[in-house]
C-alpha cells in the first residue's frame, strides 16, 4: 500500500509494483490517474506499507475504492499512523518504508518514482505472518491449491487445456503484449488528459450524510408544534414517536381549529400567539409547519425567545428571506431546517457505497419524485408557495443530489404541458444539473404523473448502478462485475434456459439500511429533539437549506431562460 500526502491528509493507493534497488532505494510506479501521484510529487516523499495475508480485506477495499474519492481513508475506515516526515502509513502493517523522493522518471501512464529510504519500520507482532501477494488479491483464495495445481498440470500434460482453448478461441500467448496491455488498461497522454479533465479528485461534494442520531434522552421536553394543519399533525406524530415523554403544545391563529388539533393530538396546551408560545416556560422547543411565505416572519417573531426551532423546508421562498432567517440564527436563535433527505438512511448508505467504489465513478443520477397530488389552499397559490412542485419536492432532491454527488455548476430545465390548471405554480418540471466534476443529474418532479413503486433515486456509475426507494429498507446495487452464477448462465443450454437465467437479477445485491425508518423523518426529529435535550442542534443545517433554495431558484432561472444557466458557487 503506497501512501502520499501527510498524516492529516493521507492518500493511500493499492499497488503490487515496487521493489528495492539496492538497500537504499525503493522504486514505485503509481498510476497517474490516481491522486497519490500528485500527492507524492507535491510533498517529495512517500511511504510504502507491506501487508500481511490476513490484511487481504483491507487491500481489497482499497483496490475497489472510488478512484477520485477525496477521502479514501475515512470512506474505507483505514487505520493510519504517523511516520517520519509527517508521512502516513497503515497502522498494523508488518513493514513500512518511509522515503524521500530522490527523482522520478517520465515513463508513460505510470511514473517511476525513485525514493531514498529514510526509515524502515516493522510491527513485530505481524512479522511472522505470511505476506500478502499480488495473486492473493487478484483471485479468490483456493480451497485446495495443491489439488488445483495437480489438475492444471494434468490438463496441460494431456493437451486437454490447449484443445479447450482452441475450441473457445483463446490464444495462449498475446500476439502483441504492448498492444494488449494498452488496450486493457494503458493510457496515452491524450487519454490521460481526457480522463483527468474533471479533476484527479472529485472535490465537488461539500455535504456528507450525518451518522444516524442517537435516541433522545428520556427527560421530558415541552415541544410546541406551530401550524395545526396536515403537516403539523405529522410533526406531532413524529415528536410522540421519537420522544414519548415529550409534552406536546400546539400553536395556530384559528382558536377553534387549534383547540381541536390539540385535543386530537393529546396536547398539554395550545396557543394562538406565536410569541406567547415561545415565551411560555413550559415550551422548550418549537417545530414550524407553516406556509412557505411566512417562514421569515415566524422566525423573526421567535428570534428574541432564543428557543430551539425546527423550521420546515424550504427555508424560504426567496434568498433575501433565507438570509434574514440565517441572520436570526447568527444572532443566537438555535435553528434547524427540516430536510428528511438529509437524514434518510438510503442516502447515507448510497453515499457510503459510492465513496467505497461500489459503482466506480458516478456518471449520471436519475431522480423521479412527486406522484399524483392536487394541491389546494396556499399550496396552489404560487405567491405563497414560492413556486410549484419543483420548489416543494425538488428542494428535497437537490439535497439528495448534494449529499450523493456534490455541488452542480450549471443547470438546464424544461417542462411538459400543464395538466392541473388549478394551481398557480408548475405541476411538473424536469431539471438537469451538471458538474465540472464530471457528472449529470436529472430531477423530474411531478404532481400529475404516477410514482408507482419505482426507485426515486438511481445512480449510474462506470461499474454499477444503485437504486433507492422512498420506503424500502434497503438499497439495490447492480454491478457489472461478473458473478459465478452469471458466467454459468452465459454458457447454459438450451437457449431458452440461458435467456431465463440471464433474466434473473444475478448481479444484484440488496444492502440493508442502518435505520429502521427508511424515510429519514424519525432520524430528523431525533436529531432535533436530541439536540434540544443536549443543548446543541446539528450545525450548518440552515445554511445548507439556503443553498438548496439557491439551486432550486437557479432551476427556475433555467426554466425561464430555456438554456444552460450557471449555478452560483457555493458560498457555504
Amino acid at each position, binding site marked *: 500500500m503506497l501512501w502520499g500526502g501527510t498524516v492529516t491528509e493521507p492518500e493511500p493507493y493499492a499497488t503490487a509494483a515496487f521493489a528495492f534497488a539496492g*538497500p537504499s532505494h525503493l*522504486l514505485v510506479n503509481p498510476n497517474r490517474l490516481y491522486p497519490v501521484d500528485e500527492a507524492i510529487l507535491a510533498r517529495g516523499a512517500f511511504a510504502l506499507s507491506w501487508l500481511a495475508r490476513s490484511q487481504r480485506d483491507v487491500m481489497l477495499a482499497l483496490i475497489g475504492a472510488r478512484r477520485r474519492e477525496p477521502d479514501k481513508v475515512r470512506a474505507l475506515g483505514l487505520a493510519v499512523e504517523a511516520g517520519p516526515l509527517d508521512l502516513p502509513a497503515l497502522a498494523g502493517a508488518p513493514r513500512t518504508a518511509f522515503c524521500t523522493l530522490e527523482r522520478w522518471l517520465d515513463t*508513460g*501512464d505510470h511514473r517511476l518514482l525513485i525514493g531514498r529510504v529514510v526509515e524502515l519500520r516493522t510491527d513485530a507482532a505481524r512479522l511472522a505472518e505470511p505476506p500478502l*501477494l499480488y495473486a492473493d488479491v487478484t483471485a479468490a483464495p483456493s480451497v485446495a491449491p495443491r489439488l488445483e495445481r495437480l489438475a492444471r498440470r494434468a490438463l496441460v500434460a494431456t493437451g486437454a487445456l490447449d484443445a479447450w482453448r482452441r475450441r473457445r478461441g483463446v490464444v495462449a500467448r498475446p500476439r502483441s503484449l*504492448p498492444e494488449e*496491455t*494498452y488496450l486493457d488498461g494503458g493510457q496515452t497522454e491524450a487519454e490521460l488528459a481526457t480522463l483527468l479533465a474533471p479533476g484527479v479528485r472529485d472535490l465537488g461534494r461539500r455535504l456528507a450524510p450525518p451518522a444516524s442520531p442517537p435516541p433522545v434522552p428520556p427527560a421530558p421536553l415541552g415541544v410546541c408544534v406551530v401550524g395545526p394543519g396536515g403537516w403539523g399533525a405529522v410533526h406531532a406524530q413524529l415528536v410522540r414517536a421519537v420522544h414519548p415523554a415529550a409534552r406536546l403544545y400546539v400553536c395556530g391563529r384559528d382558536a377553534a381549529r387549534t383547540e381541536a388539533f390539540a385535543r386530537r393530538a393529546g396536547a398539554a396546551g395550545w396557543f394562538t400567539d406565536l410569541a406567547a408560545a415561545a415565551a411560555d416556560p413550559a415550551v422548550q422547543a418549537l417545530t414550524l409547519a407553516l406556509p412557505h411565505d411566512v417562514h421569515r416572519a415566524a422566525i423573526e417573531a421567535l428570534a428574541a425567545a432564543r428557543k430551539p426551532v425546527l423550521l420546515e423546508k424550504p427555508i424560504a421562498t426567496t434568498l433575501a428571506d433565507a438570509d434574514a432567517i440565517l441572520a436570526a440564527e447568527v444572532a443566537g436563535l438555535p435553528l434547524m431546517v427540516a430536510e428528511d433527505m438529509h437524514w434518510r438512511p438510503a442516502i447515507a448508505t448510497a453515499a457510503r457505497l459510492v465513496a467505497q467504489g461500489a459503482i466506480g465513478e458516478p456518471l449520471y443520477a436519475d431522480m423521479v419524485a412527486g406522484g399524483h397530488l392536487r394541491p389546494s389552499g396556499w399550496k396552489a397559490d404560487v405567491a405563497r408557495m414560492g413556486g410549484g412542485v419543483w420548489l416543494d419536492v425538488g428542494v428535497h432532491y437537490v439535497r439528495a443530489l448534494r449529499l450523493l454527488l456534490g455541488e452542480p455548476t450549471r443547470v438546464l430545465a424544461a417542462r411538459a404541458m400543464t395538466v392541473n390548471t388549478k394551481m398557480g405554480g408548475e405541476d411538473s418540471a424536469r431539471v438537469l444539473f451538471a458538474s465540472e466534476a464530471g457528472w449529470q443529474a436529472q430531477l423530474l418532479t411531478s404532481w400529475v404523473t404516477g410514482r408507482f413503486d419505482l426507485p426515486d433515486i438511481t445512480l449510474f456509475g462506470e461499474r454499477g448502478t444503485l437504486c433507492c426507494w422512498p420506503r424500502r429498507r434497503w438499497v439495490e446495487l447492480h454491478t457489472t462485475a461478473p458473478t459465478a452464477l452469471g458466467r454459468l448462465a452465459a454458457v447454459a443450454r438450451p437457449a431458452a434456459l440461458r435467456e431465463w437465467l440471464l433474466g434473473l437479477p444475478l448481479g444484484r445485491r440488496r444492502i440493508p439500511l442502518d435505520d429502521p425508518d427508511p424515510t429519514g423523518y424519525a432520524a430528523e426529529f431525533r436529531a432535533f429533539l436530541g439536540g434540544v435535550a443536549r443543548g446543541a442542534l446539528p450545525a450548518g443545517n440552515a445554511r445548507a437549506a439556503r443553498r438548496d433554495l439557491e439551486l432550486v431558484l437557479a432551476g427556475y432561472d433555467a426554466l425561464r431562460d430555456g438554456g444552460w444557466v450557471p449555478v452560483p458557487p457555493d458560498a457555504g
Partner: protein
Amino acid sequence: MTGTLALVLVGGARVEHVALTSSFAEVAHHPAALWVALPPASAVARWLAAHERLTLVVLAAGQRALARACADAGDGVPAALAALPRGDGHFAVAGALSSTHGRVTARESVGDQALFLVAIDAADLDPATVGGAPLLAEVPA
C-alpha cells in the same frame, strides 16, 4: 523483506549470462515497460551496455533449485539454462510464471545499482503455472 525472485537472461543464440534478482517491477501499461536493477559490475549489466535485448523470467515457487544454481554460477550460466533454445526469438523457461522479453530503452544509476528501463515486446506464460505461487526470498532492505 520478502521479494519475488526472477532471472534476467541475455545472449544471442544461447544464454550468455544470467542474473538472479528481486529488484524488478512493471513500470507502465502504455508504453508497456518494466524496470530491473542489477549491480553495474555484473556480467548481465555489462552485456546490456552493448546489447539491448533481455528476458526477465519470474520464477515459480518450485524453482528454488534453479535459482540456487544461478546464484552459485556467479557470472557463468548453469547447465539448466546453457542449452536453452531461443524459441520465437526469445528465451522461455519452462515452469516459470512468466518470461517477458524486451529492449532496454534507458539506463539510470540508482544508489549502487544500475536501473534498466525495458520496453516490453512479448511474454510467454506457461499455462501450467499461470496463477501459481512465485518463488519468494528474504532480501536485504
